[in-house]
């Protein structure tokens, strides 16, 4: 488990460094996708299966692909790397150090000793009293099952509302982009299918 965590975290961090260091913007976006995949791996390790899947579907499936399209369409040249990174080091490094210290201090002081699961099942603390986790003795459901059971019954209203939002988004997108102008060229499926190869290509004499 810990090995997986280390692997995902190391890959995630190194590919996120590559996002900002890659020469080609397309490579950057591809590395970004790799970051998302690794992060969703970490989420699965935490037991957040539904969240991990949503992360993959939304970020990789929709947003990163959109990024990729935009980057490809914008025709950005491979940027020149004359300027050195040292110029940004004082400010960026300072902010990074502050964040690092915050995380280290926060982890050390608060969360790690309380999180018994991370220390293994055989750990017995002298300071912390031991609890019987009643939740674990019950039959457990995975996250997706639990969300499904709640969202289709008690909270069906939220599900409905999400669908209405999608309906409005659909109508709005059609209204704002569809041009009913006769000058706009459209695909004529029938004409395409009825076209004959021999008549289409003509030899200019």
């Amino acid at each position, binding site marked *: 488990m810990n090995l997986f965590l280390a692997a995902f975290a190391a890959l995630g961090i190194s590919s996120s460094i590559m996002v900002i260091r890659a020469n080609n913007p397309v490579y950057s976006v591809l590395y970004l996708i790799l970051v998302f995949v690794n992060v969703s791996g970490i989420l699965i390790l935490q037991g957040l299966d539904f969240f991990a899947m949503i992360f993959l579907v939304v970020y990789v499936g929709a947003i990163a692909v959109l990024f990729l399209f935009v980057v490809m369409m914008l025709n950005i040249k491979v940027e020149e790397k004359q300027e050195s990174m040292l110029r940004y080091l004082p400010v960026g490094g300072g902010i990074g150090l502050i964040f690092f210290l915050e995380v280290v201090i926060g982890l050390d002081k608060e969360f790690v000793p309380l999180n018994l699961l991370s220390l293994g099942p055989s750990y017995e603390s002298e300071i912390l009293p031991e609890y019987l986790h009643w939740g674990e003795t019950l039959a457990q459901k995975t996250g997706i099952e639990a969300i499904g059971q709640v969202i289709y*019954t008690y*909270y069906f*209203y939220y599900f409905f*509302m999400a669908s*209405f939002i999608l309906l*409005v988004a659909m*109508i709005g997108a059609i209204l704002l982009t569809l041009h009913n102008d006769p000058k706009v060229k459209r695909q004529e499926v029938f004409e395409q299918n009825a076209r004959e190869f021999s008549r289409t290509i003509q030899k200019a004499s």
Partner: protein
Amino acid sequence: MFYLFESDFLGLIPETFLLLGLSALLGYGVWYEKGRESDMTSHQLWIGGLCLVFTFILLCESPLMNMILCYNTLIIDGMSAFLKSLILISTLCIFGLSFAYLPQERIKAFEFIILLLLATLSLMLMVSSYDFISLYLAIEFQSLGLYVLAALKRDNEYSTEAGLKYFVLGAFSSGFLLFGASLIYGLTGTTNFEDLGLLFTGVGPTDLFTQGSIVVGLLFLSVAFLFKVSAAPFHMWSPDVYEGAPTVITAFFSIAPKLALFGVLIRVFYLGFFDFLFSWQQIFFFCSLASMVFGSFGALGQVKIKRLLAFSSIGHVGYMLIGLATGTLQGLQGIFLYLLVYMIMTINAFSVVLSLRTREGEPKFLLDLKNLNLKSPILAITLSITLFSMAGIPPLAGFLSKFYLFFAALDASLYSLAILGVLSSVISCFYYISLIKLMYFHKADEVELKPILPIDSQKGLLLGLSFFGILFIFLYPSPFFLLSHAAALSFS
């Protein structure tokens, strides 16, 4: 056999009816023959209006007055019934204004009507939402529709700018709302308003830690809502959006979302966080002050009609926030009364603006009002009475509502708000009266007066009804007092 939500759907009959009606209209619009869209928008307006009337009747005749629906996500009470009926009436009036506007502006898209109906539905659900998640979903539902409506005239740069600006800033304020709600959820573990209210009973001023962390969440929440109602420090988007959007949509923006958002504000702060009254009172105190001042001073420099109306609505929001800052039932009643009167006045003002259309197009500048008295004396007198009412001159409806709010503020010992409110309404008198001067006491130019187009019957009806309301509410105000009192009593 007992089902989970057996009686809940009975409480949701008006909304369900509206949803089914608009789905049928959507189907009709898709099915209808291409090339005859301009006929169809007229059919759709009639049927959509009928839908709204039926929804209104269902709402008024509903036997379920107080109910919590759908597993603590929605609530029906006096306030929701009052505000929902106002929202339905205002949408109906917008439909009335659209009959002539759509063909004049060559808007053929029937989705206009569908989106307005969807926005109405979402506003109704917003008023009765009882939980942060349902509230957020309703707000998103509403604002997505309104973004599209603001950018409806996509060939017009102003309209596109309005849509884009509204979208970016609306998304920004939704982010604030989510952040505040998640802070409060992280601290308390609940998103339900009543649970929050019960949890905070008595902890307000005592526990410093709880108060400190809740107040941060409250600050984010109130900033998000104040953004959406365009109260003063967060009002920058509203003149641009109001100017750019098609005029009918501007009228809708300045009435219906405000009705619903004030309902939401009252529900969140009076039901969920009433024990933190002294924390949020200051926020609303400040914003109310700022909105009144910015609304009246900002309007002085405007040269375009719609921008002026936007600033005037910012000022009105400031007056309504007085009622929220009082923290009393009297203040709530004042808000409800003000919302009613504000709705009538705004509908009247926008129908006058829409009636001023000449053959060249819509009037944009205030100077187009010049010598209105010679062109159409009836319109001139209607507009001037409405402006007097907006300024709060005594025998008119606007005076009644302002008077009530100022007295509520005095009873809650918010003397500075009441005094500054009176002062800023004096300043607002200045620019309203300058408009009246422009209409009446201006030398007739040698340039010939452009005749205004004939007014269609729906707009005429609206003009007459709202003018009648503005003139005579003051004579017999007790039904409106009773209605607003009944709405306010749901928070006693």
